[in-house]
């Protein structure tokens, strides 16, 4: 059972190894002539003002929260979909009840303007 995951583990190691080797190799062959201006963050070519540890729109948090809620609900549907062959009508009704609760939350988020961006 778990043997099927051994190749995945191998692949992770090979992929990380590939990335690290590429970075190390590049660091051996590339030139390094830095100066103060080159190391400044890019800002349209004029002198940099302040840094990027600043406030940003709350909407990104709302989207992230909605994502977590809906994504978990979606993953709940995976096992249901696999055995739908056997559940048939019972499964359909159960899932409609489940989706109904999900859709109420979705409609609430929509009405509250969480899905608006402007």
């Amino acid at each position: 059972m778990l043997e099927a995951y051994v190749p995945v583990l191998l692949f992770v190691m090979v992929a990380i190894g590939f990335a690290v080797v590429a970075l190390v190799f590049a660091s051996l062959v590339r030139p390094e002539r830095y100066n103060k201006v080159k190391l400044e963050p890019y800002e349209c070519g004029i002198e940099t003002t302040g840094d990027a540890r600043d406030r940003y729109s709350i909407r990104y948090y709302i989207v992230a929260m909605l994502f977590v809620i809906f994504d978990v609900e979606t993953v709940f549907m995976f096992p249901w979909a696999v055995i739908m062959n056997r559940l048939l009508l019972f499964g359909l009704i159960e899932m409609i009840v489940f989706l109904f609760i999900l859709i109420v939350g979705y409609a609430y988020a929509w009405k509250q303007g969480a899905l608006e961006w402007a």
Partner: protein
Amino acid sequence: MIDLIVLPLIKIVFVLTGVLITVMYLVLLERKVQAWVQARLGPMRVGPHGVLQPIADVVKLFVKEDVTPARAEKWVFTAAPIIVLVPALIAFAVIPFGPEVNLFGRPVPLYITDLNVGLLYIVSVAAIGVYGIILGGWASNSKYPLLGSLRSSAQLISYELAVTLTFVSVILAAGSLSMVEIVEAQRNNGIWFAFVQPVALFIYFVGALAETNRNPFDLPEAESELVAGFHTEYSGMRFALFFLAEYTNMIVVSAVATTLFFGGWLRPFPNVEWLSFLGLVPPWIWFTLKTFALLYLFLWIRATLPRYRYDQLMQLGWKWLIPLAIANIIVTAAVKVVLGS
């Protein structure tokens, strides 16, 4: 021991090499297709018709100076491209390139592994890449990358929902999460799921364009407003890893679409007898052809469509694709109940 470690390792090296070469030439193909659409020639100088251009590009990326901005978080800045690239590559672990074949008198399946939760594996692995993008943008400690990474991650997670929901309807049609069994289900049904689930295919494709930051949803890299998005501060090899990850993701979503909707390695019309001469072409060639047809579609769309506005993008994802995908699931389940009883 040989079956557990050596054989998978050989396959991994094959797949990794294949993916890298495909990415190199996909970039050339993209430049060529863009050029032809605009009545230009594209790269012509390096080798005949520019066929050696990818090699020149790789050499250039290796010998470029790699700048870490003075105020960046050094380790996170370096780790971010690796966190983006590794999930993109390991998604290939469950992609079935072909059925079992006999090589040197030993049955060898043409996939690295067949997880019984293959599709769930793809979903979860694809979700890791977002961390790399947001860490990279934040660690740069520069304004454009921060804005670009926030936008990018909001876009990725929004469309990930729609894409994951389409998977549910495919699972309903196939009755399995294993990629190999989904392909076999299409053989048994005698029809590709593209025809059983056209709505799911449409949503998946739109979602895939957004997930790979391709036109018309390439807002994370909207050059005219965000310079280069989350990788503005990246250069040299670390930029190359981001770049590689982006194109690898394109190949992954095309390969997944091929497996789920276009019958994977199966020849067209797998059950029609008089077309059996199509079976002379090896299955993995069919798989490659289908994947490349989809990749070409990506390039074609890039050359054709203008870019979306950000609020339109979020509206399309949340207000259209998600309800449509949920409705598609209910209809699919209802049809299944009617057919099953």
